[in-house]
Every structure is written in C-alpha cells, then in structure tokens.
C-alpha cells in the first residue's frame, strides 16, 4: 500500500478493502486499546477483550473512521478518544456486548497482552500507557517487516543476529566475538550484518509509520513521538 492509503482505505466503501485496512490498523492499535481500557477503567480481562473486539468492529463499520479528519489531529489521539467515547456510551446505555456476540472479527491474542500487563511495571497514566503500547506495536510490526524482508532477500542470518543481540533482554549482552563463534562468522561480519539489520529496521519502522499516518506533518510528529528519546 502506498503512503496515506491505510486510513483512506479504512474509510473506503469497498468492504474487502476496508477490512484489510482495519486489520492493519488493529494490528498496531489493539494492544494499546486493550491495555488502556484495562488500566483506565479497571475492567476485567474478559470485558476488555470484548470491548477491544467491539471497538474494531465499529471501526470496520465506519462508525468512527468516517468522522476522522487528519488535519484536526493524529490518528493515535483520535482512536483513543473514540475508545473513551465508546466506553462511556456503553456504560451509559448499559449495553455492553457479551463476549463473542457479533463482534469477534479479529484474531487477537488477549492472553499474551494480559501476561505482558502482569509483568510490566505500571507507571504513568493510562494515556501514557496507550502511547507506550503504540510505540511497542509499531516496533513489533517493523520487526515483522524486517523479518519478511530478510527472509525474502536471503539474509535471515542478519535478522537472527539482530534478534539475538538487539532484541533479547539479556544482561550482559553477548559480545560480537561470542556471536561470531555462535553463528560461525567472522567478527567483522557480525558488525556488518548488525549494521545492515539496524539500518533496515529503521527503514521498516518508518515505512510502517508512514502507512499509519495521513500527512507528512502527522508523520513527522508521530516519528518524533516514536523516537522521542531525550539524550542526556
């Protein structure tokens, strides 16, 4: 898909196009939405899973996205506001859907999200958590792209090295020499392969972000938020 197409496709009148686009948006946003409602309203995992399915069903039915205008704000903020509104409407009408009632369109691993919630350090507001989860989701989707790209390009070893060195939460990290011995490579190859994988990862993440934004300005602001590292 080309730039800007994802959100526009999600607003399309063609059900198949819309469905594909919503699935892509859901891939980036279901975790933030799920964890956000769990934290903000302290609802049960079951209710949060139902709510998340219901939320993306509404997106699919164009109820939310039709009112989205990129000139008025970020998609990220818009979706969070929609989640708030949906929850409050449901609470007011006492019509919260029961699990599996007409809303199970997406295959989402809520169990895994629940496990993450249990192990993560909860700090900051639910809104901060939403943004943090969004960053994590974009990175995970960027990694999936990187893996696919490395596989198709015959560079799986580059990805495996990247996974081993940059994605594992080991402390201390393995040295390049250790990795070279482990993978049967020269140390300089490890250096070069990792540099390649990091450069490609950066490209994949930014490509992912471009698809999720609707204008250059939004992309820039979201990229700043995504890479919002303050060096000291």
């Amino acid at each position, binding site marked *: 898909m080309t730039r800007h197409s994802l959100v526009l496709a999600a607003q399309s009148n063609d059900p198949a196009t819309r469905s594909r686009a919503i699935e892509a948006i859901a891939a980036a946003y279901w975790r933030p939405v799920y964890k956000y409602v769990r934290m903000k309203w302290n609802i049960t995992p079951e209710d949060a899973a139902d709510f998340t399915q219901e939320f993306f069903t509404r997106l699919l039915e164009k109820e939310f996205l039709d009112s989205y205008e990129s000139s008025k704000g970020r998609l990220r903020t818009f979706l969070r506001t929609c989640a708030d509104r949906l929850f409050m409407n449901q609470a007011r009408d006492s019509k919260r859907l029961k699990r599996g009632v007409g809303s199970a369109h997406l295959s989402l691993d809520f169990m895994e999200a629940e496990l993450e919630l249990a192990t993560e350090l909860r700090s900051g507001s639910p809104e901060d958590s939403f943004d943090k989860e969004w960053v994590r989701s974009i*990175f995970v989707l960027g*990694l*999936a792209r990187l893996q696919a790209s490395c596989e198709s390009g015959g560079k799986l070893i580059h990805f495996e090295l990247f996974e081993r060195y*940059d994605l594992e939460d080991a402390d201390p990290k393995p040295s390049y020499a250790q990795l070279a011995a482990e993978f049967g490579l020269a140390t300089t190859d490890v250096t070069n392969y990792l540099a390649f994988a990091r450069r490609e990862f950066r490209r994949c993440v930014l490509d992912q972000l471009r698809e999720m934004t609707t204008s250059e300005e939004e992309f820039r602001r979201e990229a700043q938020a995504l*890479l919002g590292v303050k060096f000291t």
Partner: protein
Amino acid sequence: MKSLSDRVVARLQADMQLPDLSGTRYSLLRYVACGGTGSVWLAEDTVLKRRVALKVLDLAAPADDFDVRLLREARILAVLEHPGIVPVHDAGTLADGRAFCCMKYVQGQTLAQHIATLNLPDRLRLLERIAEPLDFAHAHGFIHRDLKPDNVMIGAFGEVLVMDWGLAKVGVTSPEAGETEIATAVQPTQNSLRVTGQGSVLGTRGYMSPEQARGDIEVDHRSDIFSLGAILRFILTGSAPGELPAVSGSVPRPLRAICEKAMAADPNARYQSAREMTADITHYLNGEPVSAYPEGLLERSGRVFARHRTAVVLVAVYLIMRVLFILFARR
C-alpha cells in the same frame, strides 16, 4: 513475533536515533546536543585522527526542505572563512539517508555561561567580537536570522564564535557593493526558498526582529542588528534568554540608548551596520560621546571629568595652589 520488553523498546528507540556512519570516515563518540530538526554528535575523523562535530538531521525531519537547508548552511560556512565563524569540513548524506554536516568541534562555553564571570567593560568587549563575524557575513551578503546567546560560543582560547547558520539567507541587498558575487554561489534553490523565504516565521522569540516575526520576505541585515541589540540587552541585564526584562535604570543611559536604537521597531531607525553599533560601544568604553545618546552639558562635563580625571585634578590642584600662593604673597 514475540513482544518486546520496555527495556528493549527504549534501547531500540535510542539506537534508531544514532546516525549510521558506515561508509564514512567518521566514528561516533557521543551525543552533544539537539536542535529543532537535528542533533549534534561528537565523532572522530578516523583519517585525520581528530575530533569533529557532526550535525545530523533527525529521521523525522522532512527530507527535502531540511536536506537543502543543511547543505546550504554547509556552503555558507564554507564561504564565510572568518575566525569568528566555525569552519565546515564536509557535508553529505549518511547511509541511513540523513543529511549531515561535519564541522570543527568547539570546546568552550556558551555566552550565558561565559559572561557570568565578566565585568561590564569585558562584556561589552565581547559584544564587539560577536559583531565582527556578523559584520563580515553582512558584507558578503548573508543574514544570520537566528542570532541569540545560545548561538555564541567562547572557545578554549577565548575565541568568540557565532554558530548555527542553519537559518541564514542571502540578503536582499549587500551593505557593501561588489561582495554579492559570493552570496550568489549559495543562492537558495526553489525548495529552500519555500522553507526560508516565502513568509514563514523562523527564528527565536525575544531575539527575532519584528519584521522577521511578521514573516516579511524582505528581511535584511538590519534584522541581525535587532538581534545584536537583544544580545546587548541580555549582556546588560544578565537575565536568562527568553526572559528579557526591560533594561533597568542601573544601566548607564548611553548603553540603554544603544540598546534601544539597535532594537528599534523600524529598521531605518536602527544602526545600519554592526560596525556602526560597535563603534558606539567602543566610544562608550573610551568615555567618548555615543551617537545614539545626545547628552546634556552636565552629563558631558561629567563624562569629560571621568575620562580626564587625572588631568582635571592636576589642573584644579595647580589653580588652587596658584590662588593660595597669590593670597599669601599679598599678605
């Protein structure tokens, strides 16, 4: 795809910002500072074995406009060879697609840090030295447009450097005829005109001239004179950038007048060159009248007395002695 821990996400975020120096002669040492659209890194030039500063655009910076602007800054710095302007060594595009500019690494203090230990005359002499490279740039047809204390560094050897020419533009008219041919070598392209020329507001509030703040296209070198006046005000009040209170009554009136003239709303009412402004500062330091301040007879007498204190005292003593001698001689 497995999930990523908070620590891994933070590490990936940090890694993504690191400039990819593969294929270049530079080796990354550490982060130095960040600006609006880029960051500055300390690196080693592995060929010449010296430390350099790498200015690298952010990944999030829009590619076209800022690439052009950074390249223009590099070219402007290459043209402006002056001891008060940080020299550029190299410019280009990194493997990750980001534009970069390699400059001399300046170790020293910002103006704000440096003036804290100086007395008023030394602060004023510092302003004269800030004006020198500015006057040089104006003579070559360039306008800085973002002159402020943060963009003035005092190097390890006491050299005063005007930094960050990222917003600089070629002036509408050069104050010195015959110098414009250098400026035309770095004339803005269509893209950079869009960024810096067509009515967009760029600069720093408090140090930006009114015409620049309005987004006027016809901003000329006198906009920098306003900023130089704002720096004088900062030097006189010692207040942090951005606060900028009015110059208080404790500041000598001639200096207040210089400041007010430099920061006049109408560019025609300002000093017409940095040199003209520093001439007034020099006059003040030498105890001479300044053009910005028409002094009264009493003030002039006071100034002349202050300037020629020893001679005046000697003459006065001589006259008193003479009168006393005459009086005693009559008795």
